């Protein structure tokens, strides 16, 4: 009986003494390198890190703002209105990399000659004024637009580009896709399909990334163009904290900014901070 009490007390203390876990939530785009970094840190430093992807980027902001998590992952810039929603939280963003959103199309569209899209054309498609690929120089086929579901940073980046401000985007009803895998899967298996996708996922075989047409210029989503912010739909990958990161959150953020963390960014197809700086600097 006494042994049981001792064991119970020990177990209880062990549980109680365990440091509170570091909780991270948000964008599925940022999730990939972050989740892997969490695995590494768990193995190396025995940190307890919980990663979730509820609600995408907007979920990241709300969960960080409400204090439910210490770090929110977002795949877009932290806007003033986001900060204003949680004035007490003093939300601060630390950028860990850069990514681009591309309009991706299915192989048949690419092969029929559509390689670039302009802002006006995107608006036309979004508002269902343009319904056929032949209006973009492709074959005679209906445009099947898979819209990113609400709350995704990817959608916001697209809407910001197409309409200047995502709040100005008109209401539209399209079939929705959620994560990157679902998007790529559905676009590649449907003729005439297009959607918004992180450019690192456009593998050039299942789906193809369209370049942006600005006037006469055709700007592709290359690392150089993304880093130099020439490609309009580039977006920072941010970790959002309440105030400057401290404690365990700081350990994590520092890790992401350090070499092993940045290697993870590149591994998952994003631009590291170094690549951002290097390509942004004008050639001597």
């Amino acid at each position: 009986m006494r042994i049981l009490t001792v064991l119970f007390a020990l177990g209880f203390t062990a549980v109680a003494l365990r440091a509170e876990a570091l909780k991270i939530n948000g964008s599925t785009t940022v999730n990939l390198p972050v989740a892997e970094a969490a695995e590494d840190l768990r193995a190396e430093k025995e940190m307890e890190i919980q990663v979730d992807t509820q609600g995408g980027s907007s979920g990241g902001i709300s969960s960080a703002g409400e204090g439910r998590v210490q770090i929110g992952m977002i795949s877009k810039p932290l806007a003033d209105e986001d900060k204003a929603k949680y004035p007490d939280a003093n939300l601060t963003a630390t950028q860990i990399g850069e990514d681009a959103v591309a309009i991706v199309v299915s192989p048949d569209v690419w092969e029929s000659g559509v390689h670039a899209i302009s802002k006006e054309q995107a608006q036309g498609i979004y508002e269902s004024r343009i319904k056929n690929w032949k209006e973009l120089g492709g074959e005679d086929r209906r445009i099947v637009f898979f819209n990113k579901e609400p709350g995704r940073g990817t959608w916001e980046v697209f809407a910001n580009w197409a309409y200047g401000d995502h709040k100005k985007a008109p209401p539209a009803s399209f079939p929705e896709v959620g994560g990157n895998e679902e998007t790529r899967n559905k676009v590649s298996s449907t003729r005439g399909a297009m959607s918004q996708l992180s450019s690192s996922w456009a593998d050039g075989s299942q789906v193809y990334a369209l370049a942006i047409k600005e006037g006469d210029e055709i700007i592709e989503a290359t690392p150089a163009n993304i880093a130099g912010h020439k490609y309009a739909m580039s977006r920072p990958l941010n970790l959002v904290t309440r105030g400057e990161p401290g404690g365990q959150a700081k350990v994590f953020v520092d890790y992401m900014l350090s070499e092993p963390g940045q290697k993870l960014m590149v591994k998952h197809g994003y631009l590291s901070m170094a690549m951002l700086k290097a390509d942004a600097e004008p050639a001597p």
Partner: protein
Amino acid sequence: MRRSLDRFVAATAFICLGLALLVLTGLLAAILLRGLPAVSWHFLTEQIRSVGAAGGIFYNLLGTVILIATAALAGGLPAIGVALVQTVYLRGARARERLGLVLYLINGVPSILFGLIGLIVFVQFLGWGKSWLSGGLLLGFMILPTVTISLAERIRSLPAPYLEAAAGLGLSRSQIIRSVILRQSWGAWVTGILIGLARAAGEVAPIMFTATIFAGATIPPGIKESPVLSLPYHIFILAQDSFDPRVKEKLWGTALVLLFLVVGLSAIALPSRIHTHDEAAQA
């Protein structure tokens, strides 16, 4: 003319039966073929690496086990009480019918609504964040009707001589319940739990807002803010959000493990169900 109608009916019945079984075998074959290559001892005992592309699903399996174990208690224990009320304490067929209806209704509630109520009660109102306990309680409530009905049916079919003998010996009602009714029907109780757990193990909707996350949870440290990983949620997320082609195989492996778990639970319950079935047929 009558002969051909007769043959027609028979043919239709068998075609339908065959179709149903064909679909089943096709399904199972698809999952087995794709999942088997991924499953190994290694797969079951390691944890996730590379966001699902490598490693195993140990903590997912553990999380599901924690959830269904909690559900077994949270649903199974009250079910005893409800079954007793339904069979022993309630008098009048009307009242019993009404209670039976309530059980039917609980059983029919769409599982997403359990998730929604969990979000309102546990996450919002109680402020627990994501907790294994919320998931366990919700799943327990979900399987309550299954266990209750299984137990109640068994109690109803207890041979009258047992109860008469006990009463004749002067046992009080509580004593009769303890020594005769419950003792004789605990098998049905376990069976009901196993069948209920087979369903609960595969549910995503009740736990996705309230109890489970995708990565990082191991053993829950307490009650508040203590999510777990789980098998079905893992599959659900990876179906939408994987990265690596290697993940596909792991995905099927996870599906297969989940299927084994579910089938295993049902299979353990099988002998007891056959036994009850035969008993009823002979009665």
